[in-house]
C-alpha cells in the first residue's frame, strides 16, 4: 500500500473527504499563495525546516533551541536510524518504479549507503525491515503498472508509468516564502489525487502528525498556486516480522492551517529570541538529545 490508496481509503476519499472539502472550503487568507499577507507572512525572519516546526519530540521544544541556537547535534539511536533508512528505502523504491526498473537488487544499493558508518541501533534488523519495504513497494508498483498497460495496450510505457506510479517522492520545494527552509523535501505528492503524504515509521497515531502535510500543502500552494486540500499520514511499522501500513487521510482546512502557522510563529520566536525553554518534567525515551541534556 504505502502511498497507494486501498479500496476503503478510495471510497473514503471520494465519498467523504472530497465532498467535505468542496463544501467547507478554505479561507482565502489561509491559502499558501497569500504568503505575503497576514496571517501567512512570517513574523520573524527565521527559516526553519519543516520537521522542526512540526515535531513534538521535546515537550518544551528544547530540541529546537539546541539545534538552531546552540548548533548541537543529537545522537543516532534505533528509532531515528530506522526512520531514516525506511524513508530512504521508500524513496529509492518509488524512484525505480517510476523509471520502470522493477528488478534492481536491493543489497547493492543498501551497501552503498554505508549506514553502519554512523547509525546506531539494531542494524541487521533495520536492514531486514528495509528489504521488506523495498520488495513490497516494487512488487505493488509493478502490478499497478501491468494493470495499466493491459488496460491501455497502445499507450506509451512512460505514460503508463506516470499514471500507475503517480508519486513525486522526496519532492524538493522552496519554503522560504512561508518562513521555512529553502530546501524542503515532501515525502510524497500524489499528483493524480492531489494529496500530500507524510511518512511516519511507527504505529502511534497523533493529531500533531497532521501538521507536517498541512505545512507542505501551504508551501506547495505558495509555489505552484494550486490548492491542496487533502493530506495523509502514512504509518509504517513492523509486527511479528510483518510490514503493516495504515493511512490517516484528512482535510487540510482552516483549523490545521492556522495551527501550523501558530507553531511556525512560536518556534521562530524561540529561535529569534535565542531563549532556552528549559526542560520538561519528563523526556521521551527516544529523544536524540538525552545525552546533551544530561537525562
Amino acid at each position, binding site marked *: 500500500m504505502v502511498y497507494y490508496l486501498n479500496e476503503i481509503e478510495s471510497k473514503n476519499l471520494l465519498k467523504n473527504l472530497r465532498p467535505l472539502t468542496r463544501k467547507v*472550503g478554505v479561507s482565502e487568507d489561509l491559502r499558501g499563495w497569500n504568503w505575503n499577507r497576514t496571517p501567512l507572512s512570517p513574523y520573524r525572519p527565521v527559516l526553519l525546516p519543516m520537521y522542526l516546526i512540526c515535531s513534538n519530540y521535546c515537550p518544551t521544544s528544547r530540541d529546537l533551541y539546541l539545534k538552531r541556537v546552540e548548533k548541537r547535534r543529537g545522537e543516532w539511536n534505533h528509532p531515528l536510524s530506522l526512520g531514516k533508512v525506511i524513508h530512504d528505502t521508500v524513496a529509492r523504491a518509488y524512484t525505480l518504479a517510476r523509471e520502470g526498473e522493477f528488478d534492481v537488487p536491493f543489497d547493492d544499493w543498501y551497501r552503498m549507503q554505508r549506514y553502519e558508518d554512523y547509525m546506531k541501533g539494531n542494524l541487521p534488523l533495520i536492514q531486514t525491515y528495509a528489504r521488506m519495504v523495498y520488495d513490497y513497494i516494487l512488487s505493488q508498483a509493478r502490478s499497478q503498472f501491468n494493470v495499466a498497460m493491459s488496460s491501455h495496450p497502445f499507450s506509451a510505457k512512460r505514460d503508463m508509468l506516470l499514471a500507475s506510479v503517480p508519486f513525486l517522492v522526496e519532492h524538493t520545494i522552496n519554503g522560504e516564502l512561508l518562513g521555512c527552509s529553502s530546501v524542503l523535501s515532501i515525502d510524497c505528492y500524489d499528483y493524480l489525487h492531489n494529496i500530500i503524504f507524510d511518512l511516519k515509521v511507527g504505529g502511534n497515531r497523533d493529531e500533531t502528525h497532521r501538521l507536517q502535510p498541512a505545512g507542505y500543502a501551504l508551501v506547495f500552494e505558495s509555489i505552484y498556486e494550486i490548492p491542496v486540500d487533502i493530506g495523509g499520514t502514512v504509518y509504517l511499522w513492523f509486527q511479528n516480522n510483518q510490514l503493516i501500513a495504515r493511512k490517516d487521510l484528512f482535510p487540510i482546512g482552516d483549523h490545521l492551517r492556522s495551527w501550523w502557522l501558530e507553531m511556525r510563529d512560536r518556534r521562530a520566536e524561540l529561535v529569534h529570541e535565542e531563549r532556552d525553554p528549559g526542560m520538561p518534567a519528563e523526556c521521551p525515551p527516544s529523544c536524540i538529545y538525552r545525552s546533551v541534556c544530561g537525562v
Partner: protein
Amino acid sequence: MERLVVDGWGRFLGVEDGQIVVKERKGKSYSVICRSLPSDLRQVVIAGKGSLSSDAIDVLAHHGVDLIFLDWRGGVSARLSPPMLRTVNTRREQYRCYDTEKGAALAKAFIRAKMKNQMAVLGTYAKTRVQADPNTAEALRVARESIERIASELESVSGTACDAVRGTIMGMEGCATGVYWNAISKIVDESFGFNHRSGRYAGDPVNALLNYGYAILEGECWRAVHYAGLDPYGGFLHVDRPGRASMVYDLIEEFRQQVVDKSTLKLLSHRQIRTENFEVVDGVCRMDDATRRLVLSELLMKMDDRVRYKDKLWRWSDLILHQAREVAKFLRGESGKYEGFWLRW
C-alpha cells in the same frame, strides 16, 4: 431572509395574508416596504421607534421567531421568545452542576476560550503591523505572550464547585482583559480617546461602539441559550444577580473578540466611523443614527457570515447556537467535555 431588522422612525410591523409586513408612513398613508414569510424568519430586531401588532407577535411566536427590541445604546430592552420544549431536564442539571466540578470546568472553558481569542486577535494585528509599524507590532506581540502566560496559569485552577474557582478565574480574566485592551488601544486612532474599556456607560466612541456590538451579540447568545433549553439567568462564571442573564454573559465571553471586537476595529480602521459621529449626553457617549445603523448592519451581516470551525462551515449565529447546545449536552451528561469556541487567528 432570516433576520428582519425594523429600523428608523414611524415603521409598523404587522401581518397581511399570513405574511409579516413592514410598513412605513408616507404622509397620511402607510406603504409596505418589506414582506416575508414567517417561516423564513429566525429573528426580528426592532431597533428604531415603531409599533407592531399583536397579530404579528402571535404569528412570529407560532413560527418560533425571536423578537428583540434594542434601545439607543444597543441594549436589549425586551425580548419575546416562543415557549420551549425539553428544558426541564437541562435546567435541573444546570442548577445542580453549579456546585460540582462540571460547573467549575465550564467556567474555566469560557475564559480559556476568551483568552485564546484575545491572543488570536492580538497576534493577527501584530502580524499586519510588523513591517509598517514594528513598535506597535511588538507591543501587541508582547501582550499576546502575557495573555498566553495567564492562560497557562488558568490551567492549574481546579475546584469542585463554581464558587471555589470563580474568584480566581475572574481575577485572571481581569488581568488578561486589561492587557488586551491596553494593547488594542495602541492601534486605535488617538482622536477617539480610547485608552481602556469602560463598560456600560461609554465615555468615548470606541466604548460606545463596543457596547452596542456586545448588545447585539447578547441578543444572539440569549436566543442560543434559550433554544438550547438553558436558563439564561443561571450562569457559572458570572454571579447570579436579579435580572442578570448570567448564562448569556458566560456564553458571550467566547464570541466577543472574533465577532464584535474585530468588526468594530475593522470599521475604525476603514475610517467608516469618525469622532464627529458621536456626542456626549449626560456623561455618556452616544453615536448618531447613521453610525448606529452602520454598526447594526455590520454586526448582523457578520452573524450571517460563514466561519470555518472544526472543519465545518458555520454561520456565526448557528455556531453560537451550537455552542449553547454543547453546554446543555455537557450538563446533561451526553458529552464528557465542553470545549469553548476559539480560533487561532
